């Protein structure tokens, strides 16, 4: 397995685990609330009258740091095991794989970004809409790395 395929696996799994946890927690809070609106421990933000959920902002920040640290550390471990490959630039097949993976990723991102507008019609506020858009970005990134892994496994 090449360095860049391992790197794609690292990004895919860490994204899936870290923000999978976030969205499971977020969904659980929506189910517990019974509606698409934030209620408990709400703080007002001065800008644009937005309402944010302090607990989830903290969790989100923590998970972003966890994601960055995990990806960096795991990539360093993989790079140490194959330093020459890690230092070399992408070859043409790797560039093609990266480009080809962007297509389904964009489709998923665009589809779910459009669908997130439905949140407003379901009575969700800005906080839920923001999470729906973030969910679309997350799915798009998972599709990107998933497609890369598929193409690496297939050969190209």
């Amino acid at each position, binding site marked *: 397995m*090449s360095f860049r395929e391992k790197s794609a696996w690292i990004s895919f799994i860490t994204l899936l685990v870290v923000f999978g946890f976030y969205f499971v927690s977020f969904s659980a809070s929506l189910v517990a609330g019974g509606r698409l609106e934030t209620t408990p421990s709400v703080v007002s933000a001065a800008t644009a009258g937005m309402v944010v959920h302090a607990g989830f902002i903290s969790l989100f920040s923590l998970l972003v740091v966890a994601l960055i640290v995990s990806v960096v550390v795991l990539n360093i471990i993989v790079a140490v095991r194959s330093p020459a*490959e890690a230092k*070399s630039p992408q*070859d*043409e*097949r790797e560039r093609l794989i990266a480009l080809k993976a962007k297509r389904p990723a964009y489709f998923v991102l665009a589809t779910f970004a459009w669908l997130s507008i439905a949140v407003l019609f379901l009575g969700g506020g800005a906080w839920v809409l923001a999470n729906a858009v973030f969910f679309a970005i997350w799915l798009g990134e998972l599709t990107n790395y998933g497609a890369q892994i598929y193409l690496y496994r297939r*050969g*190209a």
Partner: protein
Amino acid sequence: MSGNGITNHIRRLRFERGEMTQQALAERIGVTRQTVNAIEANKYSPSLEIAFRIANVFAVPLEQVFQYGEAPSKNK
């Protein structure tokens, strides 16, 4: 990119050059070993530039490395 009608004799050419490894060939043409493996297995068709580099390594004309036979048309 497999099944496009392009085949190659890289495996045989490597064998004839003292069992040159995929890694050694990869280093000489500036790609990863996995890419050489994908080319050799007809899973990936390289660019013209890489194809010429491979031919140069073996010091043979391009057509002795790669061959093209019409792939079955999907439109028929």
